[in-house]
């Protein structure tokens, strides 16, 4: 069985499917970041903004990912582009909610102290609020990335390509080795994403915060 699985990975179309999967996930994640972060920055000082972010986050959690992808079919048609739009919509809520709460939870005392030291509004944002909120923002990006890699598997149902193609091929043709090869590839990709973004999250935690976290323990 192992040998048969490896044979699937040696197929000429495997790198293409893997690349489609990575491209689909990465593009959706980047567009989602490009939309969610500026919005979080814009709404960071308003109470209404926080309420909107939390509600989008809650609704995003309640709508099944399969539902969003399937709904893209009648609205946008079949293919890579409509899968990309659906995955982007799915990737936005976790980033938006984390960025919004992360920026909001920077303590007022710290901001007052910075203002007292003569920092301007822009400086407070770039030197105080963003670095302190960075771990929380990155946690949101990580959640979103893992979720996007998982949902990209479903892109196959609307003709979006990716590793889900192998699972569907294996399932409908009763090819257990193709089914398992696709499933294992997706699982490994998801775990790599989880671990990789975890490392990124630690790298973006400012030194001072790490020391504070250790003391807290």
């Amino acid at each position, binding site marked *: 069985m192992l040998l048969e699985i490896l044979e699937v990975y040696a197929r000429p179309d495997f790198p293409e499917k893997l690349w489609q999967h990575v491209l689909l996930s990465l593009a959706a994640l980047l567009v989602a970041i490009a939309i969610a972060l500026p919005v979080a920055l814009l709404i960071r000082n308003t109470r209404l903004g926080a309420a909107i972010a939390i509600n989008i986050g*809650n*609704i995003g*959690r*309640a*709508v*099944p*990912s*399969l*539902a*969003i992808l*399937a*709904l893209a*079919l*009648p609205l946008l048609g079949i293919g890579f582009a409509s899968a990309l739009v659906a995955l982007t919509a799915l990737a936005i809520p976790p980033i938006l909610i984390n960025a919004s709460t992360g920026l909001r939870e920077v303590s007022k005392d710290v901001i007052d102290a910075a203002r007292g030291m003569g920092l301007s509004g822009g400086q407070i944002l770039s030197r105080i609020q963003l670095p302190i909120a960075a771990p929380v923002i990155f946690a949101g990006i990580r959640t979103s990335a*893992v979720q996007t*890699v*998982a*949902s990209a*598997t*479903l892109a196959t*149902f*609307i003709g979006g390509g990716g590793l*889900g193609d192998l*699972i569907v091929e*294996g*399932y409908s043709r009763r090819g*257990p080795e193709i*089914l*398992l090869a*696709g*499933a*294992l590839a*997706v*699982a490994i990709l*998801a*775990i790599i*994403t*989880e671990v990789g973004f975890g490392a990124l999250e630690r790298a973006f935690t400012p030194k001072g915060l790490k020391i504070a976290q250790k003391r807290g323990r």
Partner: protein
Amino acid sequence: MSNPTVLFLQDVLQEPKLIDWEWIGENFWEDIVPAFQGHIFLSFVSVAVALVIALPVGIFSARYRKVYPPVTFVTGILYSIPSLALFAILISIPGVAIGPAPVIIALVAYSLLILIRNTVAGLDSVPPETIDAARGMGLTDRQILFRVELPLALPVIVAGIRIATVTIIGIATIGAYINGGGLGQLIFDGISRQFPTMIIAGAVLATALAIIADLLLLALERYLRPWARVRRT
């Protein structure tokens, strides 16, 4: 009436016929209601089974801290495996047939991380003074667990059940691909028949079910945490 926007909207609403109310009326009892019931069944059974596993494991991990990191590592890996992949892996195991069983196994696996984490966090949140006081009153370890620690941890555990349930209701839709039934069946049938009404019916009902479950469990969580209500006002 010659307004181009109005004409465009009429096109969008009528031509591809996004919602065919006639179909919904005709198939309501035959297709939609059983799918809805199947979805509730899948989600409820999965969360119930997951609780039976997660509560003892969580209590044990809270007591014996060394167990906790490996437990979160294993359940964390299970949690990050995409559901379609996990379904495929499960039905590749000899003896596991397609149907609701592998779907429930996968949904249980996804719930474990959230439920165990919240059980441990809930038990951790019990103040040590409270446990000391209980011991001073002559309660045994078992009595302390069931009469003091678990009741105080319950709101946090219910918060975990709430997150797990909403997650599971969403993932359960994908289970229809391996014949697990539920609202995903409407979505997959809608895709293969190119019939948007079925997709929308499945999507809207699954979302509604998740929101209703979320609100009900939130109400339960608030009810179990009367001290927070008092403090807030």
